[in-house]
């Protein structure tokens, strides 16, 4: 076989793997070059997003099954959500996705100020999203629409006394169907809760990134972290796009 088989038999074989010349400091020792390192990190992020897809996949499956089974309950329960808040939040999140994308662009083109600004905007928009979510949640808590021991059916049995139901001109549900609104709210809280948790984690990382970016961390060519975080943030945005369509917009025309 050929002589090119350069397998190191002994430890003293030419230690030319020097940390000499053009190797930037952020290149970790086990990678051949920066390209490989960035590539591996990006690919790893995508694989991680796959696991996230499957994580939400279980919830979406449950949602689709029960929506089919208990459609009237899902319609009535979704009318309890505010389309205005939902749309605002969707817009906020889309905007934050945009600012995040701009942040990545700034990092790639080495604009430190632009990066810090974009990250700050993303951070703020994330907080706005969570703020609106808090308003929505507290409304549910007030109305006892949180599944569990204190769950209250009156909005669905007696829609005339309920502002949201009246606005949607809902008819009263029979008791057995009204009970199934609890399944809707179970899924609502599980899905939006998991999403909000991802937002909180994202915002925490954003805070750290702003801190580092001000020191010029990501604008010297090593943009992997910003890019990967961008992927995460966009993914969270996509989940919300579906949640909005599925949870808020069931049959608004009735």
């Amino acid at each position, binding site marked *: 076989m050929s002589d090119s088989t350069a397998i190191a038999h002994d430890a003293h074989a030419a230690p030319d793997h020097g940390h000499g010349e053009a190797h930037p400091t952020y290149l970790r020792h086990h990678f051949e070059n920066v390209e490989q390192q960035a590539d591996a990190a990006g690919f790893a992020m995508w694989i991680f997003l796959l696991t996230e897809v499957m994580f939400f996949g279980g919830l979406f*499956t449950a949602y689709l099954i029960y929506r089919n089974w208990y459609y009237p309950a899902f319609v009535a329960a979704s009318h309890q959500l505010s389309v205005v808040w939902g749309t605002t939040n969707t*817009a906020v999140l*889309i905007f934050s996705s*945009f600012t995040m*994308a701009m942040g990545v662009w700034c990092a790639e083109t080495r604009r430190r100020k632009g990066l810090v600004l974009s990250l700050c905007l993303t951070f703020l928009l994330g907080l706005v999203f969570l703020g609106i979510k808090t308003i929505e949640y507290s409304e549910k808590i007030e109305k006892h629409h949180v599944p569990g021991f204190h769950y209250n059916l009156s909005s669905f049995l007696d829609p005339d006394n309920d502002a949201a139901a009246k606005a949607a001109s809902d008819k009263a549900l029979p008791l057995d169907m009204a009970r199934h609104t609890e399944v809707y709210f179970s899924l609502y809280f599980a899905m939006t809760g998991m999403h909000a948790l991802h937002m909180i984690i994202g915002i925490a990382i954003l805070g750290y990134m702003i801190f580092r970016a001000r020191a010029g961390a990501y604008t010297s060519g090593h943009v992997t972290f910003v890019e990967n975080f961008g*992927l995460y943030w966009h993914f969270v945005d996509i989940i919300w796009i579906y949640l909005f369509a599925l949870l808020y917009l069931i049959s608004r025309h009735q």
Partner: protein
Amino acid sequence: MTDQKEMESASHHVVSPKIYVIILFALILGTAATVWASFLELGPWNPVIALAIATGKAMLVVLYFMHVKYSSKLTKLTVFAGIFTFLTLIGMTLADYFSRAWGQW
């Protein structure tokens, strides 16, 4: 070395902010469209349209914001694998639920 190509094609393609702005407007437009469509009486098409618009929006985010349009085949394959498994989980589970309603046989 098979990966040589993958690596080169994955080298950063910087997307211009102009495209980002266009996508942003498309997404906002999509959001408006989906809200508007939900107030129309379309029968069984309501959820279909809602999901179609949501999927369209998600595609824009994936392709442009997440740069998949400019990424290596491997990344595209990864995205595809995710969607495929996701649909397997949903599809095969729902198949059980739907066929249960068909009765004994």
